[in-house]
């Protein structure tokens, strides 16, 4: 083990932090969110700095970095509250495509390889945005498709049913959709929005609590070619699980970065705000609460390391166990840090006028994304 960043990782982190300080300011973030869709200039800047293809293999025109590099990168992105689909596309969707293409027991491996060859370089360059569509209404975090079905038709499949909570679903150019197949197993389909047409999909795009967006996708008999099916049965579930583990690990690093920002901005506020003739930072009761924030942040950051380290684990059960433990801790600690930050900012913390609220809401959203603390508890209790 070595906790020191390599020279390359250090340089990447530095240039990221500079980019963030320059272009992901409080007002820039707010302006972009208010505009509604994805800001293409911001997206291009992220592509250029190299975070979209970070862990995508060089064969697919990515940087082929070790998963450990997710930690400094997403920690820096979280510290600046990046809302663009770096994790959704560059981490989770890219991982699903890679796992499906690599898996020799995947009966659709050839399709997956073509899809990976077509999409991964575009994901790395930012010209394509892919995102997972696996959740279904009223089924919380269930990973087995049931409502969305793919029936075989002459030239391929017909997709019907509703996917929900699709992160950046409206901005994405490709959806990786899980669907129940005729044989009762699940499959993963690549829906390329430019070639597969959109007259048979209704996209309900909504804002989220954390300056991001998600969509509900209602498929009404969308026709897909045979080669859109890229994984089937166990291979589909393994690819989805792996993609979510990678995505969750990056989310944990993002959350840890967001928590660090909150701790430091709260410390600054306590040093500045005067009550009873002295800065709030002079009151021991408040110093202790700030210390509690730091403790929580350190626990969360450590769990982000656990999650990222688990990605190289061969045993998928062990990987899942460690990633779920990390998400449980990060979800709880993130809310704790956010709540304390609001409390220590007093009335000002309750307003929409400071960044503290944006960070708090991002941390709450991270708990809800891809398995909340309750869901992780159920997973872990099942593995006990």
């Amino acid at each position, binding site marked *: 083990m070595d906790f020191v960043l390599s020279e390359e990782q250090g340089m990447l982190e530095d240039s990221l932090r500079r980019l963030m300080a320059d272009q992901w300011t409080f007002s820039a973030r707010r302006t972009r969110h208010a505009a509604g869709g994805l800001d293409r200039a911001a997206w291009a800047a992220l592509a250029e700095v190299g975070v979209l293809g970070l862990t995508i293999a060089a064969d697919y025109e990515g940087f082929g970095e070790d998963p450990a590099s997710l930690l400094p990168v997403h920690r820096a992105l979280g510290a600046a509250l990046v809302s663009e689909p770096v994790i959704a596309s560059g981490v989770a969707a890219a991982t699903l495509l890679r796992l499906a293409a690599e898996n020799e027991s995947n009966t659709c491996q050839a399709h997956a390889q073509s899809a990976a060859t077509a999409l991964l370089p575009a994901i790395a360059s930012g010209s394509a945005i892919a995102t997972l569509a696996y959740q279904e209404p009223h089924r*919380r975090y269930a990973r087995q498709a049931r409502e969305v079905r793919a029936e075989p038709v002459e030239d391929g499949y017909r997709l019907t049913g509703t996917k929900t909570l699709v992160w950046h679903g409206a901005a994405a150019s490709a959806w990786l959709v899980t669907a129940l197949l005729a044989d009762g197993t699940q499959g993963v389909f690549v829906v390329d929005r430019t070639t597969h047409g959109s007259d048979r999909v209704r996209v309900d795009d909504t804002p989220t*609590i954390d300056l991001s967006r998600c969509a509900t996708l209602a498929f009404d008999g969308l026709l897909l070619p045979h080669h859109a099916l890229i994984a089937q049965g166990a291979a589909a579930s393994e690819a989805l699980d792996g993609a979510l583990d990678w995505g969750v690990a990056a989310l944990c690093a993002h959350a840890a970065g967001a928590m660090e920002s909150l701790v430091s901005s709260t410390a600054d506020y306590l040093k500045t705000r005067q009550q*009873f003739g002295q800065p709030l930072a002079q009151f021991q009761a408040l110093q202790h609460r700030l210390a509690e924030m730091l403790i929580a942040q350190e626990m969360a950051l450590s769990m982000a390391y656990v999650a990222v380290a688990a990605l190289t684990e061969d045993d998928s059960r062990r990987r899942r166990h460690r990633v779920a433990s990390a998400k449980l801790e990060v979800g709880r600690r993130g809310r704790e840090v956010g709540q304390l930050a*609001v409390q220590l900012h007093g009335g000002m913390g309750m*307003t929409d006028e400071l960044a503290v609220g944006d960070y708090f*809401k991002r941390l709450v959203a991270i708990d*809800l994304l891809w398995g909340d603390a309750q869901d992780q508890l159920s997973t872990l*209790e099942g593995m006990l």
Partner: protein
Amino acid sequence: MNLTWTQEERDFRDSVRAFMQTHLPQDIRQKTIKHQRLAREDYVRWHRILAEQGWGAPGWPVQYGGTGWNNLQRLVFEIESYRAGGPRLLPFGLSMLGPVLMRFGSDEQRARLLPRMLTVEDWWCQGYSEPGSGSDLASLKTRAERDGDHYVVNGQKTWTTLAQYADWIFCLVRTDPQAKAQSGISVLLIDMRSPGVTVRPIKTLDGSHDVNEVWLENVRVPIGNLVGEENRGWTYAKYLLGHERTNIAGLGHCHRELAHLKMLAAETRDENAALIERPAIREKIVRIEADVMALEMLLLRVATAGDGAPGPEASVLKIRGSEIQQDLAMLHMEIAGPDGWPYDPGWIVADSAESQTRDLHAAAAMAGYLDYRKTTIYGGTTEVQKNIIARMVLGV
């Protein structure tokens, strides 16, 4: 000591229940239960229905048009009113300024203002906090200077709840800038329509508009609108805050939310079972249920301890009441789960277009979770309440 409810007390409870059944308008009940924001008109309508029944001021003595109920009856009324889905009563006149006027106001002020509170002819708001004076309220800077038979007021108030609806504001102002912090403060009643009064909205975490900044620029206030004596305002303010702390324990709210969440946890399912089957959810519900029982008995003990303003013990109530309200809001969000993530502040406004087409309980849960963070901040933060307990209750 007798710890059982008497027949008389049970009859009283039944009469409140029966009244709620027949008189609470369905539309107001629905909005309240769905955690939607009520319009000004909704509040006014409900207050007038209560006033019609003679219940316009559950906490006031009969001579001022109140019910003359004892503290136990008031509590029963609050619990039953919430249980039935009744909205909260506006506290600004009934629980805040009203008691202060009864104790310290002039006969003229009582005669002129108290009856109008009962029917919300006047909507009051509270001008206490300032941008530089939150926990350290006594450092407030809003200045009132005598000019003939008027005061001229300059300054800025903040966190003024529902000032956008208000006709009047009761303000803490500094009348003697030379005096030590607490001793130069007075209470002034200011007509919100006076020239120089400007209300600016403050948007909060859930995107809603409940609180405001109130700017006062050369506002002329007749000296007849001074409450009690000049420079004695801090005494009156503290009297009021004691009332506020028992009021914001939120017992009725806790009872209603608990019942609501039990139902919701039974109705909401994951792949395998209702959420109420999950050990982690069951444990939380059971713990909060015990907490609410303790809170209720604490409130009964404090509320029946004497006739005057509650003492520093009210801080215990405020701390626990606010924490339990937050626990409930958090549990609500956990039950809503992933569906709490999509959110638009416009959705939870009463009668919004989306409320017709979307199931918004999860959005309301998210809004509530964020909004209830305020409970450990307003009315004296938890940290300040603990200082009060240490100093005034424990004497350390």
